[in-house]
Structure formats: C-alpha cells, structure tokens
C-alpha cells in the first residue's frame, strides 16, 4: 500500500492512482453514488464522496480526524457501483486509515485491542494458541494436525479464529470436519500453529501488521504439501486470493461454498434427510459482491430436500452487508455512537420480510451477528440463523444433537 509521507491529500490520491488498487480516485466526478449507496452513508459526517473531495482539494486534516473514517465495514457496494471504477474499499479507505494512524490518530479502542490480539496471539479473540484445537474435543472423526504430522493432503483447511474458539461457531467447524471426512477428501489443519491470515488488518490500514502475518503464514504454508487451501471465513478467502499474491504469496484457495459446490455430485447421495425450512440466503460481501460468486451457496441449499429457497428483496450485488467486515465486527459501538445503525439488525428484518424462517449464512461473523440481531429486533422466535454447513450436515445426518 501507499506510504504517506505528508498530509497532502492530493498526493495521497495520486499515489493511490499509481498503485494497482483499481482506477485512481482523482477521476472521481462527485456523482455521490458511493455516498447514497453506502449503508452507513447517511450517518457519515464525510461519506466517501466527500473524503475524496476534501482530499483532492489537499485538505486531509478533516478527513483523517473524521469519525466517518472508522465507519466503513468493507461491503464493497461503493466500489462495485462506482461509475468511474474507483476502488474505494480496498484502495481509498485503507490508505486514508493508514495515513490517519501515521498522523497519530487512534482508531476506536476495541479495534486496537483486536490488532493487539492478532499480533500477540495470532487470533482476533485474544485466546491462547493452545486452545485452538478445543473445538475438536470429543469429535467423532479424525483431525489431522499437519503441524505435528506433516503429510501430503488435498485440502489444507484454515479453520479460522471464530470457528476455532467461539462455541457457536465451533459447532460449524465440527460439522465441516465431518462433511470433509464423509466426502473422503484428504484434509488436515495447522492446529495450534494456525494464525489469522490478517484480512481485517489489511482492510483497516494496518499494513505493517498485515505484512507480518503474510510472512508468518507463508512460512507455515510453505512447510506443507497441499492441493489447495479451504477457508470458512470469506474475508480470509479474499485476503489469500487477492492480497497475499501482492506479496508474492500465491496459494490456490477456495471458500468452502465454492469447494463444496464443486463436490455437488459427491454430496448428492449423502444428502438423506429432508430439512423442512423456508430459507433465505445472505450473500456475504467478500465471496459475493467482491468476487461475483452467487450461485454455489444457492446450489448447495437447493441440494437439500425440504428446503424452500426464497430471496430477500436485496440480494446478490445489492445484498446488505451484516456490518462485520473490514474490522466492522469491533466497530458497532463506534458506529452507533456516531448515528449509524447496526446493519445486521436491518438485515434480519429484511430476512424476516422475505417470508423465510431460516437465514442461511456462510461467514463465521454473520452467525453471531445475526443471532444477536434477531434477539435485539425481537425476531428470535421467527428466524433461525444457520450456516449452510449446519443445514448440509443435518441433511447428511452429521449434525450435533444440540443444534438440530
């Protein structure tokens, strides 16, 4: 990313133009499509359009000190639509945040704590690496820890921070382990050595920390002999797919929905039990809007007998973000304090309005965000939030009794 040596906003935008993050912001025509598209735009003192306007005028001070700078949740809606093709999400926002931090402006405290956790412990939750394997306790399939027993595998599964540590997500991790085993795939994990790929750190302008994580992970991956990386976290997918190669770290990687959709024919005979549910699918931003990958998750859901798939009014390109990306997971307090809403609350209302009784997700952050949102909005009784993996596992009779 661009290193900013001065507070000259025009120069910052020029530097961004010279980098390979989309078209340069200098070509902005101030149409405001980004501002009105941004789900948090109305709450931003300086929505993206004005960030560019001020910066282009050379006036970076109000930009860097604006609370708006810490409100982007990296949903890609503005980048996707920008008529001038400007890459705001991966280009402008991280560069401005980097510039702010270099200018001594502190990001919200919760976020700083997360950065510290990643740096110290290799995970966003600040848990001990030794507990990384806790989710496998009592699991009825064999989990190969490649950091202890290196051997060639087809799939190196990066379990991810939330599925490793967070009880609600551990259920999903266990289900995925059973599905992989049932499919007969050779797979392994990195056990206690696994570290966060650093996806949100990059998006948050913590370029230094991100580079450190790329190096650490590269060292880990290079010791292993695997066909591809498979991840549960869409943000990790994006980081490995498009940020790591910028540092020369190329690894074939798939989000689990892509991986499983490639195995539809192998899955089909294993799907035995109907799951009676009206399901709506929430497109996560990184696999969906960022990569245009909308069909695989739906193909997986339609594989399950009994599932009736309905769409929310806003889907695919127009899907509303859960608010958890790009560090957003730790920004709710900051966003609400500055007049923004929790996007997950709005999204569960939209899910309920679609007539669904189940909101299917494919991102570890969304599970807890939407379950919380369902409680807050009083929709808890009407709307279950389940990962696609859980629905598949249930239909394959691989689910856990506690979550059927």
């Amino acid at each position: 990313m661009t290193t900013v040596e001065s507070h000259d906003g025009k120069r910052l935008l020029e530097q961004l133009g010279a980098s390979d993050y989309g078209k340069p912001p200098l070509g902005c025509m101030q149409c405001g499509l980004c501002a009105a598209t941004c789900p948090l735009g109305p709450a931003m003192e300086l929505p993206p359009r004005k960030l560019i306007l001020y910066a282009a005028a050379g006036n970076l001070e109000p930009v860097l000190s604006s609370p708006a700078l810490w409100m982007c949740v990296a949903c890609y809606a503005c980048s996707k639509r920008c008529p001038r093709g400007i890459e705001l999400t991966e280009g402008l926002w991280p560069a401005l945040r980097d510039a702010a931090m270099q200018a001594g402006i502190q990001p919200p405290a919760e976020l700083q704590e997360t950065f510290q956790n990643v740096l110290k412990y290799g995970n966003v939750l600040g848990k001990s690496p030794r507990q990384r394997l806790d989710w496998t306790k009592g699991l009825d399939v064999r989990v190969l820890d490649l950091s202890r027993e290196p051997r060639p595998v087809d799939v190196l599964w990066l379990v991810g921070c939330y599925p490793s540590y967070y009880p609600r997500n551990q259920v999903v991790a266990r289900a995925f382990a059973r599905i992989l085993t049932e499919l007969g795939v050779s797979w392994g994990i990195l056990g206690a050595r696994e570290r966060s790929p650093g996806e949100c750190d990059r998006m948050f302008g913590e370029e230094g920390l991100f580079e450190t994580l790329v190096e650490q992970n590269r060292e880990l991956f290079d010791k292993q002999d695997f066909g591809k990386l498979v991840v549960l976290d869409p943000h990790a997918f994006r980081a490995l797919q498009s940020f790591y190669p910028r540092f020369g770290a190329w690894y074939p990687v798939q989000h689990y929905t892509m991986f499983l959709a490639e195995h539809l024919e192998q899955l089909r005979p294993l799907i035995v039990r109907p799951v009676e549910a009206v399901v709506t699918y929430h497109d996560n931003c990184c696999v969906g809007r960022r990569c245009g990958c909308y069909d695989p998750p739906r193909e997986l859901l339609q594989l399950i007998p009994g599932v009736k798939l309905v769409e929310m009014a806003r889907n695919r390109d127009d899907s509303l973000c859960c608010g958890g990306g790009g560090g957003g997971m730790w920004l709710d307090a900051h966003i609400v304090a500055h007049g923004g809403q929790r996007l997950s609350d709005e999204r569960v209302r939209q899910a309920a309005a679609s007539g669904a009784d189940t909101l299917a997700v494919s991102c570890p952050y969304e599970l807890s965000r939407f379950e919380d949102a369902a409680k807050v909005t009083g929709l808890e009784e009407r709307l279950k939030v389940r990962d696609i993996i859980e629905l598949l596992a249930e239909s394959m009779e691989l689910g856990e009794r506690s979550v059927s």
Partner: protein
Amino acid sequence: MITSDETLRIGVYVCHCGSNIAGTVDVEALTKFAEGLPHVALARHYKYMCSDPGQELVKRDIVEFGLNRIVVAACSPNLHEATFRRAAEDAGLNRFLVQIANIREQVAWVTEDRQEALEKAESHLGAAVRRVARHVPLQRQFVRIVPRAMVVGGGIAGIQAALTLAEAGREVILVEREPSIGGHMAMFDKTFPTLDCAACILTPKMTAVKLHPNIKLLTYSTVESVEGSVGNFRIKVKRKPRYIDESLCVGCMQCIDGCAFTRAKFPNAFDQGLGLRKPVWIPFPQAVPPVPVVDPEVCLQIARGKCKQGCVEACGERNAFRFDQQERIEEYEVGAVVVATGFHAFDPSVISYYGYGKYPNVYTSLEVERLLNAGGPTSGKLVLRDGSTPKRVGIIHCVGSRDANYHAYCSRVCCMYALKLAHLVREKTEAEVYNCYIDIRAAGKGFEEFYNRVQNEGVQFVRGKVADITPAAGQGTSAEGGLVMKVDDTLLGSIREINVDMVILAVALEPQADANQVRRTFGISCSAEGFFLEKHPKLAPVNTANDGVLVAGACQGAKDIPDTVAQADAAAAKALALIDAGQIELEPNTAWIEEDICSGCKTCINLCPYQAIRADEERKIAVVDPALCKGCGTCVAACPSGAARQHLFGDEQISEELEGLMNYV
C-alpha cells in the same frame, strides 16, 4: 544485381522542404552521393520540389536531358507521389517510372545527428534509384462507377441521405429492417429544444421518400452480403415476407379491422410493448410504406393453416394478401453505400438497483416518449400502470452512460431529452418533477436557454446519481404504488430520499446489437465502444476505412437529430462526389498471372480476400480481374509456381530496393 541497361538515364531530385529536410540532412552532400550512383544522369537539389518551379525543373530535365527515370527524395509518397507522377507524365514519361525516397518523415524528422541523417538518407535514396531502374511503364486503369447509391437504415439519417441523393438526380436504394421507415425519431413526441412535434417534421420527409421517383424503398429488408469495392458494389438484400403484396395494397387498413382477432393482444414493439396489436398490424398510423405486415408467429392462417381469413375478405377485390410469400434475395449494384443503421436504447434491467422490470412504474425514456405521443398506446396521456396520473416523477440521468460498468461515454442527448421530458411531464400532468443529474450537458444551439426555461418552469434539479429505487414504506416489492429514490444531493451535501410515483430512466444510446455483424458485412471498423469508426475524427468524419462506404447518424456515435441530419447530408455529398465522377482510377499495384507458368492449381482463388481471381477452365489458368484486385499480394506470396506477380512489387523491384537499402547503410 545492378542492371547493365545502358539506356537508363535517371534524374535525382533532393528536396530541402524549406528547413524540414535541409535542417537535418546535408542536401548538397546527398546530391553528390546521388551523382555517383549507377545510371544517374543528373542530380539536383531544390528548396521546394513540390512547388511549380520544382515540378517545372523535372519536366524540363526530362525533355532536355532525355531522362527516363525519376527519383525524388522528399516527403512521404502519400503526399506528393501523385504530383511528381503527373509532372513526369506532362513531360512525356510514363508516370510509373517515378519513385519517391521518403527522407522527411523517415529520416529528417526522426533523426537528430546530422551524419546519421545523411547516411540514412543515402540509404533510402540508393534504394529508390536501384528500384526505379527496374520499373517498367504501366497503363493507368479506370473502372466505371455505378451511378447509384444504397442507403442502409431508414431512420432520420437514412431518410435525409436518401432524399439528398435523390434530389441530386441519383438513383437511391433505401434499405430498412423494420416494416416502416422513421426509426427512433418516429417514436418521439416532441424534439428538443424547440419542442417541434417530431412527427410533424419527420412525416413529410417520409412521404417524400415514398413519392420520390429516384428512391427505391426496401422495407422489412436487410443487407445479406456485400461484394466488390468502391464504385462497384454488388449487394444482396434479404426481403422478409410481409404476406401482403406491397404493389396491390392501398393502405386502407381494413384488413386489420377484419382480422379474426377482434381485440389486439400482442405487444407492439414500436410502442415498446406498452401497446397491443393484432397479427396483421402497422407500427404507427403514418408508417411508410402504409402497408400492414402479418406476423407469421401468431397469424392463425400462417401458423395453423386455418382461419376464416377476415383480412382477405376485407381486402376484397384488391386481393393483396399472399400467405405463400417467401423470403427472397435481391441483388443491387451500387457505386457507394451510406450506412445509417442508428442506435439501440440501453436496457436498464441490468442495473439491478434501479428496479426496471421489477417495479412497474419504473420506465425507460423511450417508453415515456410513447406514452406522451398522441399516436401512442394511451393516445398521449401520461399515466401509471394502474391508469392514474403521476403526481411526483423522478427522472434519472446517465442511466448506462458515463458509467464504467456499462458505457463509459456520455450519450450526448440524454440531458436534453430528459429536460424535454421534464417539461412535457409538467405540461401534461402538473406533477412535481425531480431531475437527478451528474452534470447538465446543454452544449448546443438553444440548449442552455431551454435548460433555463425548464428550471423556471419549476422542475427540481438534484445533483447526484440515484443509488437506489425502492418501494415506499409499507408496500411490497411488486407494489403498484410509490417509490423512493435515494440520492446524495451533492450540492446540498446530504443524502435524500425522494418519494415519487413514477421514475423515468434516461437511458444511454448504445451500438445496435448486430453492429459487429454489420461492420463485417461492409468491411468497416468499430471504435472501442462499438460505434462505427470514421476514417478520421476531424478531417474524414463520414468516410470509413472501406472506400465508398460512408457512415451517418447515431451508428457512428451518439448524437442528436440536428447533428444526424448534418452528417447524413455530408455522407450524401461524399457519395454523390464519388458516383458522379463516372470513373475511378485503380491503384496500379494489382496482381497479374504469368500465363505460361500458371499450373491452374487454384490456390490463389481460394485465398483472394476480394474474389478478384477466377479460373479460366479452358486454358487451365487463373485470371485476375484488376477492377477487383486490391493489391494485397496474398496470391503473389502463395503461388507455388511463382506465376502470380504484382505490378510495382515484382521480385526484382523489391530485391533491388532491399539491396540498395543495405548497400548504402
């Protein structure tokens, strides 16, 4: 090998071109060098060779010193080869015994070091001298030009071009794909900025086309193939069956009343599907020709073979119906073609956040033109889907234009037609109108004044690109009712939600869906965005890369009616200048077959891109038609026995030139 022909007397002329050449190349030294070259009888340098005294110098020397070859070291042969060829001819020398050495563009302008420049110039000049020694006299060849033109596309561009050509007394064949001429202009209600009724100014021209004795009108027809080249195109036209004999139909339209379908039930494409038609129909009342067309997909007689044929009964003794009519191909010979195939209106359904096709009261501008038009499906009443009159109307500019995701270019006309629609909507409904724009582009005669007028009429202008259209609160996605436009009002600096009950999308003008196919048929090029490419953006705006094929109107780029008409007249004038010349000189560099060597293998025949070679089956040889040959050299390179040769590009000429180039480096 240098020829030993002692009769050769080559004259060399080095041009200073003011200081253009002489400033870099030592012209005196170059002249001295030339004097030492084989067969050079005389070498001179002069300030401006292309001037009259310069040319006179050449002429006088030819006569006085018996020169029989001329080399001019000057600018590109593109500029003055013809000048010196003519000068030589005036002095009695065959014009093809002249060779140009380009020492300006290829030497003086691209070389800094004087010594280096002199060496390069020597090498070029030496090559030209060696080459010209091998030149032989050639005859100039001319072909007759067919004094007739074809205009493809019957919108306002094609109509205008055809009328101009016809009024000049030339025969014109006007080909139109749809059942009627008129194009997009016939769909519009009013035209900006004067608010002229579109039909009132267009239909007289349409009628003039119909009545003009010099215009042969082929509607419901498309160009299938184009053969030949400038001056002599042979064009096949596919004529779709109307199932009605145009020569017998009087346009009474009684067949439409008589049709077995008592009610119209099929979408009328001319009305953008908002109106309905019967299987026998006419796009609009003033259609030219005023002849209905039968839709074979839904006509009971054609589709199922049984119908009481009320249409035929209504037609009566005029007896114009022909249910057995077949598609047929007609061939026309023309000297020039004007391509005026127009544009396609962008389909906004691909922009998901505008909800076109999802929310019934989101319309395209073209649909609203039809609603406003007295001849349209609502007889000119602007109504919502439920028949009620809109009270608040949003007009969104730049839909599909100025957007890297769709078309990066500005469509030029949308701002003005959006202003016109704003005016008409207010005039007809008194609705509150919001025009959401990025920039207002009102650069044209009377445009800014019209913008100002519309502002003063109370239309609200919101500077910002609308980000979302959603149903108003409390209404489902398929609601018939209100909509909300979410937009960053960039001048107010706040994000607004504007309630409206109708949204009009000012859609882009894009190339026709089959533009690429048309481009290939006519041998022309497209620019990156897909519009047909003119030969030069400033100096040859209606010519194309294919001589004799001209372009006019929105097929060349988005433009309004005045610009289209001006361009159509320009194309007609160019076509006229061409076909009125009577004959056209062929390039001399055509291929020919050395008959004694040709084995009749026909390799060249299949390779020739211009169908210029045919087989003489009796003599078992290939024969080149110089009128069709473009001098591409493909046959020359491919001929296995070396029988295919090319004037001015003989093996000995090329190898001498190369040797000359190498020897004097």
